[in-house]
């Protein structure tokens, strides 16, 4: 209306202090504080080799968390990402070791398997209207079982596929910049993060991801085929789990069919610490990345300080509650 003042354009400052950015800032500040704290507490912490170890440890959980972030922004949840990751690594094992096909075929097969399983979850949720929690819980169990069935409950090793371990452990970066041994796994994490960030921020798929989480009925009434887009988002998240499956298999030089349960919760924890709202509609990949880093910095730092593993888990749990509580406090103040 001409009677009212125009809102100021959201400049850099406004963006920095918008609600999403605020939480990211909080998470980022916590990460810096942790880094400083551990550096002061132990001289071994801020070593190049240790930083690389932290990044490497973040890669699998980070990639999984990015996939889950997409689903959570739509207002859903994906509990199947952990066992889906394992399923994809088993598929890679079957294709590469059992069938002896070349490496690129195995990579494509793992990612395709992830995408298809994601599409299946998406179909349960969008078409069959099963609540995401239940649909992906069922998917989680089915995939856990299938991984064991397909592999005959035994690990599948990749000794016959030269170059498979390089997916995660090799370092293209070091061949280009000598002295900077950033492993490929970390590189892949950042590539996945940047690509997903781009999809979320700049493409139609990303737009509908936020729109679905914000007000699904309104999107539907706008004439958008909400079911199809939701399925696409779950499929993309599944494909990203396929990448995580390749990363973990490469790191272990094997597909471990019994692995995977529990990874989904770590991934969701990273998403939540990174400020993505479980109610949907809001979230960033940057936040998730920071969330995943906070978790691995904590684990690593506490280990260096010789804190027992059991206590590390307790601390991680407390951090999740603190992170969400801080977010609630901020929201209450601003509303």
């Amino acid at each position, binding site marked *: *209306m*001409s*009677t*009212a*003042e*125009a*809102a*100021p*354009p*959201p400049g850099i400052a406004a963006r920095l202090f*918008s609600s999403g950015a605020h939480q990211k800032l909080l998470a980022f500040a916590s990460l810096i504080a942790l880094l400083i704290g551990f550096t002061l507490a132990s001289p071994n912490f801020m070593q190049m080799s240790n930083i690389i170890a932290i990044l490497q440890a973040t890669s699998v959980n980070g990639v999984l968390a990015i996939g889950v972030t997409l689903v959570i922004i739509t207002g859903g949840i994906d509990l199947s990402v952990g066992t889906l990751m394992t399923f994809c690594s088993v598929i890679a094992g079957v294709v590469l070791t059992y069938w002896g096909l070349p490496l690129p075929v195995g990579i494509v097969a793992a990612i395709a398997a992830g995408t298809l399983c994601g599409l299946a979850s998406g179909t349960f949720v969008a078409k069959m209207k099963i609540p995401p929690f239940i649909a992906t819980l069922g998917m989680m169990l089915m995939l856990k079982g299938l991984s064991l069935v397909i592999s005959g409950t035994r690990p599948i090793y990749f000794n016959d596929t030269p170059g498979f371990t390089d997916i995660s452990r090799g370092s293209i970066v070091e061949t280009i910049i000598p002295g900077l041994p950033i492993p490929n796994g970390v590189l892949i994490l950042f590539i996945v993060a940047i690509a997903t960030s781009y999809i979320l921020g*700049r*493409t*139609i*798929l*990303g*737009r509908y991801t*936020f*729109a679905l*989480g*914000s*007000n699904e*009925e*309104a*999107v*539907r*009434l*706008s*004439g*958008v085929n909400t079911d199809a887009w939701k399925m696409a988002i779950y499929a993309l998240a599944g494909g990203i789990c396929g990448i995580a499956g390749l990363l973990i298999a490469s790191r272990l030089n094997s597909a471990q069919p019994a692995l995977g349960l529990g990874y989904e919760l770590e991934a969701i924890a990273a998403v939540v610490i990174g400020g993505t709202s479980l109610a949907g*509609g*809001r979230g960033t990949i940057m936040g998730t990345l920071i969330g995943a880093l906070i978790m691995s910095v904590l684990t690593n730092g506490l280990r260096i300080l010789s804190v027992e593993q059991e206590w590390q888990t307790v601390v991680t749990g407390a951090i999740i509650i603190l992170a969400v509580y801080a977010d609630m406090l901020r929201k209450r103040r601003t509303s």
Partner: protein
Amino acid sequence: MKPIIAMKGIVKHFPGVHALADVSFGLLPGEVHALMGENGAGKSTLMKILAGIYSKNGGQILIDGQAVEIGSPREAQDLGVNIIHQELSLMNDLTVAQNIFIGREPRFSFGRLDEAALNRKTAEIFKSMNLSLDPRTIVGTLPIAKQQMVEIAKALSFNSRVLIMDEPTAALNNAEIEELFIIIRRLKSERVGIIYISHKMDELKRIADRVTVMRDGQYVGTVSAAETPVSEIISMMVGRALTDAAVVVPELGDAPVALEARGLSREREIRDVSFSVKRGEILGFAGLMGAGRTEVARAVFGADPLDSGEIHVHGKLCPIRSPGDAVRAGIGYLSEDRKHFGLATGMNVRSNIAMASLDRFISTIGALDEAGMRQAAQRYIDQLTIRTPSDTQEVRLLSGGNQQKVVIAKWLLRDCDILIFDEPTRGIDVGAKSEIYKLLHSLAEQGKAIIVISSELPEVLRLSHRIAVMCEGRLTGILPGGAGTSQEEIMHLATLRESVTQPLGAA
């Protein structure tokens, strides 16, 4: 002139309800056609069929003389039919521009978004509307009136031939309504047909060409807006002359005051509101949407904190900080949203009636006294004539009117003698309405103090012994009930704005 839209013999069933029966409606190009009727008359249902949101069970829709089937909102949009919903349907986390072009985003190859074009197009629409708003503003940060303008901009962006506006001015202030009317007149001159749903008579007189009235899912008639007196339109809506239904105000001269509120204030929602209600009295609260009536009720009930003000119950100052305090003081609140706040719909009648008084039905070992609860429930089923097969029937299987009675029973069992009813007949069919009215009157005769909030003026007039009218958080006047008070007097007070009105967006 050939009509753009002709709806003939439209029939719609919902489970257990005959929502529309043989309804016809026509729209000419360049016409503003008002659709009127009481809440639940079927206006919104008819329009949702036209907009492709509901499918019809019978009848025919012609657009430009051609029979069409409108199967989805997208198909309606493709036919040039757009609807601005009564409930805002925006995505709060997205920007204004992203909302307006949802589903039609300008894009590059590979699904990449052309955000610059998106914002440019939106700015152009705003310019044509004389609306100064940054396309990149997040919708959730805007006041409701601005969000309403975003909805209108969205509808305009489709180059609609038919625009359905469902109560578009409910959240707008006078200046904003003027702007909306300018836009409507411009659309008229571009031969867009506009269907305008509103309860505000003065607006219809100013903007509408024809008026079609619906009642109980049926077509009543179509008349010229300019030549038909308001009273005639109203009697078409309610099916009788309004004065016939007026309430008999009892003589309450020396009855004790049950509840008195003094200077209630809460942020911008409630501004210095004072009123009292006597035992045996029904005090009606009238006002437009967002006037602050529900906010007052919630504050009295302790659901929202007050910034200042006092509440006296039976002459004693009573600090109410929580709903628990209010219930202990004998105040019961019957929310407008029974399903969310009033009932555990999955539980049975007995449990619901006993819900607020469970401490009375605990045996010495801490078990619940089912026999006692059954007796109590049966007493109220008889007293309020709740139609249910038994007290173990799940509440969700009862009709709206009987659900409402269960809520009333719950508070009566709790010995509440001050009852606040927020939209007591929302979602209740007409037959059951008069039963609820009778029930409220008999409760008053038994000495209960009753506050009724209603958006339906005929209902306020039919129930209230006195009528408190609110506008923008202020109590603008208290009118006597009965035949002496007209809808126009209430509407006058309901739109009585402060002389210096802050534009909503500027604060």
